[in-house]
């Protein structure tokens, strides 16, 4: 939050809309993703966060508008070219075959091997670093389907890092992580951004977004409600309206970033105060 991100966008959504059948999941969203920044995408359930991320990834094609990567529309790339430029971390993995965690991470090297842009030593080094950064090296020989949800998430992130791309798109990477690994994962995202990566990450926890994002895109009912630095976007009135739930925003007593506090609506109180 101290350095200003460099101005040239690497990935850009230009007025994108997406419809399936009669449903309009996303309408007229424009945003830029800059090298060196962590952009958090937040919003209520069904606001279109995952749709936006999949459009940015080129997994879905926009009904209207375009997504441009490095000056070229995504549709002009072949899948293997895209894979060298952006990596996508899905919400959850469907893998049911008994690959070891290390084998899963090594799959991230596929685009480089296919393009013959890597050798065995580079592969080994990148895989080892990705596993060290995600603290997954002790899981290396475990079978992926036997790992817990949080462990699978970290291994999948390691796979995404092994892909070694300038753009990272992460769909709720913190979903099933414990508090230490939630912060660890976003601190890592921030570190990668400082090295020059452009990172878009869907988050449900607004406090994590406040603490780690350089900018926040707030989605509501398929539209971009606001886009800007955490302090500008995380306003009491806006959040209360978008999430349809009373929310207070204070200043974090220790770190000086916004602290988002949902206000519990209690039913008529029983006599004794509940603990916690």
């Amino acid at each position, binding site marked *: 939050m101290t350095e200003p991100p460099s101005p040239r966008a690497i990935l850009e959504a230009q007025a994108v809309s997406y419809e399936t059948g009669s449903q309009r999941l996303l309408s007229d969203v424009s945003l830029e993703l800059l090298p060196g920044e962590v952009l958090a995408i937040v919003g209520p359930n069904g606001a279109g966060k995952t749709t936006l991320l999949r459009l940015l990834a080129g997994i879905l094609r926009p009904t209207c508008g375009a997504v441009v990567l490095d000056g070229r529309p995504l549709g002009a790339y072949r899948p293997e070219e895209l*894979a060298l430029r952006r990596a996508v971390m899905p919400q959850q993995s469907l893998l049911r075959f*008994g690959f070891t965690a290390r084998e899963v991470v090594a799959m991230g090297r596929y685009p480089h091997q296919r393009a013959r842009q890597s050798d065995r030593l580079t592969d080994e080094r990148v895989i080892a670093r990705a596993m060290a950064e995600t603290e997954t090296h002790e899981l290396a020989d475990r079978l992926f389907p036997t790992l817990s949800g949080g462990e699978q998430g970290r291994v999948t992130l390691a796979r995404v890092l092994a*892909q070694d791309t300038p753009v990272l798109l992460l769909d709720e990477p913190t979903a099933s992580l414990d508090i230490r690994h939630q912060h660890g994962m976003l601190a890592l995202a921030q570190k990668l951004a400082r090295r020059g990566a452009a990172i878009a990450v869907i988050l449900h926890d607004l406090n994590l977004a406040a603490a780690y994002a350089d900018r926040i895109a707030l989605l509501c009912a398929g539209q971009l409600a606001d886009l800007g630095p955490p302090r500008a976007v995380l306003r009491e009135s806006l959040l209360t309206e978008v999430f349809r739930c009373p929310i207070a925003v204070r200043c974090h007593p220790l770190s000086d970033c916004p602290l988002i506090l949902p206000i519990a609506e209690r039913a008529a109180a029983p006599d004794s105060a509940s603990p916690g």
Partner: protein
Amino acid sequence: MGTVLSRAFTARRAPATGGRLVTPALLFPGLVALLGLAILLNLGLGAMEIRPAQAIAIIADRLGIPLSTDFTPQQASVLWAIRLPRVALAALVGAALALSGATLQGVFRNPLADPGLIGVSSGAALGAVATILVGLAPFGLATLPIAAFLGGLLATLAVYGLARQDGRTDVVTLILTGIACNAVLGAATGYLTFLATDAQLRAIVFWSLGSIGGATWDTTLRALPLIAVGLLAAPRWSAALNLLVLGEEEATSLGVPTERVRLSLIALAALMTGAAVAVAGIIGFVGLVVPHIVRLVSGPDHRRLLPASALAGASLLLMADLAARTLAAPAELPIGVVTAFAGGPFFLWLLRRARQERAIPG
């Protein structure tokens, strides 16, 4: 290599002694040895005994290398005209079925997939039964295999075409389409069977239980190019297949041209299975189970799984054919009966053992 070894030696949820039949490092040497043993047994056993040394000497003699081992001219002609083509055909068919099964299980991300799923077996059966009933033979003895092969290929094309929408195919739709098409083709075959005379019925039953017995150099060489294409081409996609089992979107975002990979692999599997079914009838069990057995030893990596399945399938079918022609000699059992009878219980045992050992079978 590190992971391969540690996979064998790391205790997981299981006691370290549990489970593995052999260590993965011995996988390929072991499979090659098994195949060699199966070939020598098949060449040697039968109404006329031919010792391994004699078999080698006969082959060497044909190639113009005289060895000191004695053999009779009868032994030479039995080996050359009967046993060798039969061994070659059994190995080819076994390899084709097992490799098709392993490939399709990856393509469909489903360990229950087998070559029958894409309609190739039921299409081939309809082609074969129709030929038997019509009784026309424009291509002589090759008529039935040709009709079976075309039937299998057409059925696969129909399944793929019907499952395709907007240039994409959804895996679940593909599986369900296959089930529906198999039902229709099976019903058509059933109706023709109902119309058949007693003699035709016998031919139908014989064909649908599978047999390598008709093997000649002619049939073997006819199946060879089709199966060879699959054996050589399918493993080239194994790295992409590894990513495909992560899920379609993940494979796409890792740069795999998923639709092209899937179409190529289904086409190759249909080609191999079609050729195998055409010359040997319907031999169940091999395509479904051999990849599972191999996976328990090799792990799920298709770069090992595909070639290992082909080798194991060849050995398994050779042993099954040996049993088929020796157990009830001088009569021959249908080989499909042998594979299912011996393989079913073995697979059940393996499943239970694997379940005790780790959470996920396969």
